[in-house]
């Protein structure tokens, strides 16, 4: 919805142009997504018009969407969180473990526990990054290994199966309200909250300010340390929630749950127009990017392309998206200079 409201505000001519381009940016990804869905549906109507197809279309991306939104916030502050996959794995296992060890535990409590664990792991990342002034990439690469190690140590060769978890919880993974899966509704609510916060609040704008120019933000008096910390906590908490989703959706959790997701999450954010250099992009874009990644995954076999090629298509998309970003940025810069020279 912010897609349509964003440029509507009456702004001076110069400020309007970047807004218009920003809209085009996410619009392009959305158009690609719609195109993929239409093409796959034409080829096989079941892709969209069967109960399973419709559900998968919305459910599968919901998990990555959450992780990508957290990742987007972190990248906007000019950091990166490579540990999200490991955080997700740990919280997914915690979810299963709680159901096994504490029979009859309320689902809400489990969700809260998983989110808290995720937030705590994010806090560790953030504290190391913010206080030690060490690049996030190095720290989160370290915690990627460390968290996964803890996960494997805790899990061992154990595996939580669907039969270990209550039916009510597993139903969350498939249940629908008015044809829309519950998990997707939760994901969209989280997404809308994050988008609103980033766009309209002082705290949200500070993320962008920090990402645009960390030293300027510091000079200006923003509490950079605290802000960066909060971005990592948010990313961790969202990865934690994604872990719960993972457990509910797949019902089977091994020690390798979520491994490799960090690159999917960064990829989704980059495809969605989040600049890896910070300060640019919206969580809507990241969410659409996540949706596109997951949808292509399912659409390729239907379109007659073996799904082995899926990663190659994703790679081309990522490169295409950042090249497009660059072209738009260069053009915007030129327009701004022209506008300045004219006035």
């Amino acid at each position, binding site marked *: 919805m912010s897609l349509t409201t964003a440029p509507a505000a009456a702004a001076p001519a110069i400020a309007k142009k970047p807004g218009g381009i920003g809209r085009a940016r996410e619009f392009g990804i959305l158009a690609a997504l719609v195109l993929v869905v239409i093409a796959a549906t034409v080829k096989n109507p079941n892709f969209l018009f069967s109960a399973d197809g419709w559900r998968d279309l919305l459910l599968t991306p919901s998990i990555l969407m959450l992780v990508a939104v957290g990742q987007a916030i972190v990248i906007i502050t000019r950091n*990166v969180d*490579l540990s999200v996959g490991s955080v997700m794995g740990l919280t997914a296992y915690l979810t299963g473990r709680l159901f096994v060890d504490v029979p009859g535990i309320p689902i809400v409590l489990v969700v809260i526990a998983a989110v808290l664990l995720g937030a705590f792991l994010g806090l560790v990342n953030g504290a*190391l990054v913010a206080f*030690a*002034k*060490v*690049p996030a*990439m*190095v*720290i989160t*690469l*370290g*915690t*990627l*290994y*460390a*968290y*996964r*190690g*803890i*996960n*494997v*140590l805790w899990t061992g060769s154990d595996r939580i199966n669907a039969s270990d978890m209550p039916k009510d919880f597993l139903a969350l993974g498939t249940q629908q309200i008015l044809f829309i899966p519950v998990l997707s509704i939760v994901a969209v609510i989280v997404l809308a909250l994050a988008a609103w916060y980033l766009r309209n609040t002082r705290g949200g704008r500070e993320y962008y300010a920090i990402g645009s120019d*960390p*030293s300027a933000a*510091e*000079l*200006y*008096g923003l509490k950079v340390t605290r802000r960066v910390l909060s971005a990592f906590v948010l990313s961790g908490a969202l990865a934690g929630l994604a872990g719960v989703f993972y457990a509910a959706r797949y019902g089977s959790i091994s*020690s390798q749950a979520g491994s*490799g997701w960090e*690159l999917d999450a*960064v*990829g989704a954010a*980059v495809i969605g127009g989040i600049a*890896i*250099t910070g300060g640019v992009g919206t969580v809507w874009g990241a969410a659409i990017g996540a949706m596109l990644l997951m949808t292509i995954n399912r659409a390729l076999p239907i379109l007659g392309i*073996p799904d*082995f*090629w*899926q*990663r*190659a*298509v*994703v*790679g*081309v998309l*990522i*490169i295409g998206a*950042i*090249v497009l970003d*660059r072209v738009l940025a260069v053009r915007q810069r030129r327009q701004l200079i022209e506008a300045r020279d004219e006035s």
Partner: protein
Amino acid sequence: MTTATTTTSTRVIRDYDRPLWRRIFVNREFAIIALLVLVAIVAAVTIRGFAQPITANYLLLDVAPILLIALPMTLVMITGEIDLSVGSMVGLASVVIGVLTESGAPFEVAALAALLVGVVGGALNGFLVTVVGLPSLAVTIGTLALFRGLAVGLLGTTAVTDFPETWTALAKAKIAGTTIPYIVIPFLILLVLFAVLLHFTPFGRGIFAIGLSKDAARFSGVDVERTKFILFVLSGVVAAFAGIFYTLRFGSARGDNATGLELQVIAAVVLGGVSVFGGRGHLHGVVAAVLLIGVLGSSLRLAGVTSDVINIITGGLLIFSVVAASVLAWAQRVRSKAGPPLRVAASPAP
């Protein structure tokens, strides 16, 4: 402007005014080498079976791809860039060999084609980073997916395992009279080449200059774009070479070969003292770090510790090594009152 340099103080390492002994013994590279020796001695004394010559064989065979790829990665990261696509390039090179030998080409031709693919892949990274002007982190996440996708797409889930006996045997063969595998010879040649390139040529000085300040490097006559482009090509071609070795060592070309290798290489390079901001690093520190991870891994495995604990230790070591450095720097600043303040003076609360 001064705040910019103080807040990112990790990149300002000016220790040339310290006495020589301090420069040798009080630095990151020495710490890693010392730790490597210490761990090796402790492992040799306490772990049964570690102090056997055959251990060196397995250890070197295991870490060889990481050792090889860490060489160009060190140079790339000193310029402040990164190449995440190396693991996928290993897989792609492996698949190229597999597909070609399966279609009847001699192994030598297939291996050459794999190296060529490495050059092309590296040039693609280099082109996108230097000509189009994109951040290498984003570019190489894209080519990470692209190369892996090509590898898996070309071969699917099948594996090619039919390679000439002479070559597969060579990959695992030991140098006569020792337990050291032949792979150390190309590694040593590359190590010397890269060390000379980095430390004894204008090109190498340019690499450090770019990492410290791209603009300053450009003004002092360094061709920033050309340097970066060459480094990405080198990274691609060495990754492809590692892919050839990987294929021969396991006698199998598969699309998912060496998945996740890029993270291991980067972890080792960072542990070895290369700053991700660029401008700082030495090859000997990186080689020691790769060997440290290898020795830790193989000794702990021999001691019956599972690979998960090794992961925790690797990650912990990585975090500890970077955090310890900034804690030391912080302590030094506190001690020398004359030094610049750690942070900008706190502004009044809003």
